[in-house]
Every structure is written in structure tokens, then in C-alpha cells.
């Protein structure tokens, strides 16, 4: 089985601040990987670099073992099948829910597109709201809408940045169920999250970042037992 995302010797700097420091990482198809760690550990920066929003100083990122991502534009990366949900819910507020998802589908306006949109709206539970403006949705619904927007194009790599931040317990559970449903053998899912129960519910493996480096990699249960992880992150 091929590796979905392979990060090698990645370094990202903002001025003098080194956000990611010589990081290496491999994410397989079919797995849900959680990336956790304290604030400033470089989690969101990692997603930024993979999705092309930020540029790496050195190192490389291989998608599907064939595409080098660090030099590509955000749009090119997205079109190749790597999609990402932002930390702050980013939906197009002046457009309807349906329009939002349709835009997520990309240029393909083929016969099946209407059905695809309907299906994904059903999956995230927004079918009843399809014709409302996105700005009228509640916070949790916006999170799901954004997930629908990135998922509708059936990406091979799906990155979710804090998908349950600010959600109620009930909404968090629904989101966890949603993520589990999105998991397919041909897709890698990367989740950045602080909610450890949520992580435990969905993640196959976790990677703990600290000061831009990997501190730990393995199952959630082992992470909870790891002294260093407890020290820098979980213990607090």
C-alpha cells in the first residue's frame, strides 16, 4: 500500500521563529491520523504547508508517492486531491448552502453532480437547509458545511483542522460519527484537535508535535501513557 502523505525533513520559518523544525512524517491511506500537541507546536502550520498556504524553507512533501507539493499552488494541490478544512469555519456566507457545496465540487458540472451534492448534504445533515444562506447557519452547522465542501470532491487526503472546536457534546459526537463514515481505504484523514475524547474516538494513530518536532507517534492509548507527552501536553 502506498503512503498518502510523506513529509521529509520539513522546516518552516516565520522571520526568526522556526514553526516546524526538520519534521518527518508518513500518513497511510485508510487511516485516520490525529495530530495533537500544545499551542505553537506547529500543527496548523503543518496543514498550511501541505495545503500550500504557507511555504516551506526546506524539506519536501510527497503526495501519493509521486507529487511533490511544496512548490505547488494551493489550487493545484487541491485539484490533485488534497483538501483541507480550516480551523475557523470558512464558508462563503453570501451564498446558499447548496452553492457552497457545488463550489466544493469544482468545475465538474456533469450529470451526477446534483446527486453528489444532495448525497453529501444528507450525510452532514444539512439537506433541510440547502437553500438557506451559509451566514444563517449555526456554528456547528458551518463546521459540517465546510466538511461537506471539502469532502464532496472525494479527496484522497482530507485534513480537518479542529473540526469540533466550539461544538456541543452532542454535535461533537455527530462529527465523530461523520468522520468515521468518511474513512475509506483509499483516503487518508488527518485531524488536528485538542479534544482528546474526540481524538480517541476517531484516530487510528496520533502524532504529538512539540516545538515543531515529532515527540511521539503511536496509538492514543500509548500516548496517554507516555511520560513526555503527559509532561508537555496532556498533563496540563
Amino acid at each position, binding site marked *: 500500500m502506498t503512503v498518502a502523505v510523506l513529509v521529509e525533513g520539513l522546516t518552516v520559518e*516565520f*522571520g526568526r521563529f522556526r*514553526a516546524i523544525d526538520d519534521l518527518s512524517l508518513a500518513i497511510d491511506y485508510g487511516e485516520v491520523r490525529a495530530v495533537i500537541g500544545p499551542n505553537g507546536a506547529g500543527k*496548523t502550520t503543518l496543514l*498550511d504547508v501541505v495545503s500550500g498556504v*504557507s511555504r516551506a524553507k526546506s524539506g519536501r512533501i510527497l503526495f501519493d508517492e509521486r507529487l511533490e507539493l511544496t512548490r505547488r499552488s494551493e489550487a493545484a494541490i487541491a485539484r490533485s486531491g488534497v483538501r483541507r478544512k480550516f480551523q475557523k469555519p470558512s464558508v462563503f456566507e453570501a451564498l446558499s448552502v447548496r452553492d457552497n457545496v457545488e463550489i466544493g465540487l469544482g468545475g465538474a458540472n456533469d450529470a451526477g453532480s446534483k446527486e453528489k451534492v444532495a448525497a453529501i448534504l444528507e450525510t452532514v445533515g444539512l439537506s433541510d437547509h440547502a437553500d438557506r444562506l451559509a451566514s444563517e447557519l449555526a456554528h456547528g452547522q458551518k463546521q459540517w458545511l465546510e466538511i461537506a465542501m471539502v469532502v464532496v470532491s472525494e479527496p484522497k487526503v482530507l485534513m480537518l483542522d479542529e473540526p469540533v472546536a466550539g461544538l456541543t457534546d452532542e454535535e461533537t459526537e455527530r462529527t465523530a460519527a461523520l468522520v468515521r463514515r468518511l474513512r475509506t481505504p483509499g483516503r487518508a484523514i488527518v485531524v488536528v484537535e485538542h479534544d482528546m475524547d474526540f481524538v480517541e474516538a476517531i484516530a487510528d494513530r496520533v502524532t504529538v508535535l512539540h516545538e515543531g518536532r515529532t515527540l511521539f507517534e503511536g496509538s492514543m492509548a500509548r500516548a496517554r501513557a507516555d511520560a513526555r507527552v503527559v509532561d508537555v501536553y496532556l498533563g496540563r
Partner: protein
Amino acid sequence: MWRRSLLAGLLGAVVACGPAAAAFDRAAIAAQACGGAAGMTDAANAMAAGLVDASADDAKWTVALAGAAIDRGLKCGPGGAMIVRSEGAVNAVTLSPVDGGGGTSPLLSLKNRPLFETVRAAATLRSGATADERGAALAALERRAGSLPPEFFEKAAETEADAGLKARILGVGQAALLNSPDMPKRIAAIEHIAATSDRRALTRVDGLKSDPAYRTDPAFRGAVDEGVASIGRWLALSNALNVFYNGLSFASILFMASAGLAIIFGLMGVINLAQGEFIMIGAYVAYAVQETLRAVAPSLIDWYLIAAIPVVFVVTAGIGVAVEATIVRRLYTRPLMTLLATWAVSLLLVNLMRVAVGTQNLQFVTPWYISGGRLLMGDFIVTWNRLFAIVFAAVTLALTWFVLKRTPLGLNIRAVTQNRAMAGCVGIATRRVDMMAFGLGSGLAGLAGLALCPIYNVNPQMGSNFIVDSFMVVVLGGVGTLAGTAIASLGVGQINVLIEPLYGAVAAKVIVLLMIIAFLQWRPEGLYAVKGRRK
């Protein structure tokens, strides 16, 4: 050359009077002075010739008569020439009081004005009460030494008591001997002239290359060549200094106009198009302070520029706070709307001022400390009004830097600039900081207006001249850095002044703006930028 033609005329007058030239005929001179333009020329020439051997008393009289002619205090009535003074009219010959009624005041023609100015200065040199007075007169004569009889300076030096001044008089006298038949004196004159090293000196010495002596006399040629080379070197330096000074002066104006903007834009990302009008209001407040001083303490009126500093700051900062609280505050989430709203504010302020005060330029007193300038070296002149602006800008830069770096307000401003949300989380009242910063920025704009009143016209429209330039400076410097703004001002000022003599003022401005636009395409964050994660 006009000076030489004057000289020729004067020499002619001297020759006509003969070497004796002793008789200083006041009555004749006064009569000539009332004889129309030609008569006035004769009067001036007669006085210049007579001053060589004139008594101190005659010299004093000459000062009075020439001064009266220059200041239009000379009056020609049926009873002859009179000098009108504030305390009453006197007979121009006897200086005894007369009835000043009737008659006309002749106006000096363009040609006669320099003659009378020279005569007055020469007479003052002979009769001035203090060494300072005589020194000033000598300085005025330096440029026109050639238009006086050569012996004048020797005589003046003889009677001069002050040793330093005496040497200077002799020096000026030597320079006047450039065309003397006596070769050593000519060479000495060349050396003396070369010591001034301005362009006029170059013209004079360089002109000697066509003198027959240049081909025949090696010593003379050597002196001329050496003089031309030496002047050329100093001239190049003084020109460079001029360019630098002009650039610095322009930069100081740019900096003053954009410093407030840099703070407001950097902190809030708000484009304040009314910034130019705060500058205008600052100047108007300075005017109000001047008028108040005129009414309350006329003796202090020269100091209105200093007295106005706190008033201007407080008033413009107050208006800024008011604008922030009523308009800008409600639009923080919509920066482009703020832009339009502040434009409307600027329109409103201009027109309020127009209706309330009128469109005419305000009349400012020009205190002695910002009036005129000083030739420092060669052609390098330092004008006091611009030096005032430069110093003012430097002090403003230092104080603003201090406020931003060393005071709690500055700390808060910097915190909010860097991360508004985080600053809010740690308990900084961001809205209050915004208001204070907007006030600070507006106050700085007001101070810019104050610094500009000795340089530019003050009228309701004045603010609009600065807006594009100052935005470009702020963006070029990098938003949110005062140092960036200062350096961008310096760069823009100097480049502008460098290009201007080559392609003209318009092209210079166009080129500089295009350079900035191109630079920003390449580096949108400006020279100095606070980098961070995007989005």
C-alpha cells in the same frame, strides 16, 4: 555682465569727480534724488563716490537718505526733498523738522534699488555704531564689492577699529581688485575670490581665461587654474550638500505627514483619508494660537510656533478621538467602508473650514528663527524654515518612538498591532487603545500642520496634497513600523530630489511613485514588515 556695467558707470562717476572728490554736496545729492529715475541713479553714484572720503557724519546722513529712498520714506515736495519718519518729516539736507504735507514718494526703479542698497551698506560700514552692524553691512557688500570705488575698502579699513572686521574689509577690498592693472593684486584677488567657492566666484575666475594675461603670464594662469579647480571641488561638495539638504527637508515633511497615518493604519488597518485635513486643522489651530497671542501677549508673538505645539496636539487629537468614537469605531469590520467614511469626513472638514474661515491663505507672522537662511559653504544654503521642519520631524520621531517603546500606552498599542485578539484576551481594552492610538495619530498629523505653516500655504485645501504621498510612504515603509516610515520618507525624499533636476518636478514625482508601486508588487509587505502566519 551687469555688475561690470554698473562698475563701469560708477568708475565713470568717480573719474568725473576727480581724485579730490572731497566735496560731499548733500544739497545737490538730495536734489538729484528728487529728479526722477535718472536723477536717483546720479544721486546714488555721487554718494558712492563721495563715501570714499566722507566724514562719519556724511556717512550717517547717507545711511538716512539711502534708507529713506529704499523704504519709500523719501518724499519730494515743493520745498525739496524730505525724509518722512514715524515721528514726523525732516528736511532731507538739514534733517531739521519740516511740514511733511504734499509731494510724492518716488519709487526706486529696479535698476536703482541695488545702487541704493549698496550705498546704504557702504555708508553703514563707515558709520555703524557697533561692530555687528558694520559686519552685517560688509556681508551685504561682499556680493557687490565691485560696484564701489576700489579705494573705498582701503579707507574703510583705515578707520575700522575692530581688528577682525578690518581684516575682512581688506579681504573684500582685495577681491574687488580683480581687474587692477597691478598683477600681484590681481592674483591676490583671485585667491581671495576662490576662497568663497560659489558659482559666482567660478564665473568670475573662469572668465579670466579669456583675459590676455592668461596666455602671457604663467603666474596668472597658474592662479586662475588653481582657483577654478579649487572652486570646482568645493562647488561639487556644496551641490551634493544642497541635494542632501533638500532631500532631508522633503523627507521631514513626508515623515511628519505620514507618521500619524503609520500608527493608525498599522494599528487598525484603517485607511484614514481625513489625515490630510488633520494636518490642515493643525495649521489652523496654530493660526488661532498666533492670533490669541497677538491679542493677549503681543510681545510673545514670535513664539507662537512653540506655544502652539501642545494646543495643536490636544485639539487635533481631540478631533481624532471624536471621529474615531462616532464613525471609525463602528466600521472596524469593514475597512473599505472606513475609507469612504473618512473621505466624507475630510470633505466635511474642508468645507466647514471654507465656510467658517474662508478660502484665502492664512497670514502667519514669520518669526526671526524661521526667516531667511544662511550660506554655509559655497552655494550650500540652509534655510531656517526648513531646518525648523527637519528638527521638528526629528524630535517628533524621537518622542513618538519613546511613547511607543517606553510607555504603557505604547506597549498596549504594540500589543494590539501585533495580535488584537490576544491583546484583548490578556485584558487590554483594545477599543480604548484604538481610540488613544487614533488620537495620537491625529495629533501627530496636527503637529505636521504646525511644522508646515512656515513652509507652505495654509488654506482649507492644503491637506489633499499629502494624502497619496503619505500613503505610499507608509505602505513602502511597511505597515506598523515607525522606523520603516522614517526610512521610507528619507528614501523617497532623497530620490525625488536627485531626479528632479534631471527630468523636472513632475517626472520626478511620477518616477518615484511608479518605483514605489513596482516595489510593492514585488514586496507587498513593504521594507519592514511584521511577518506572521497568513490567515
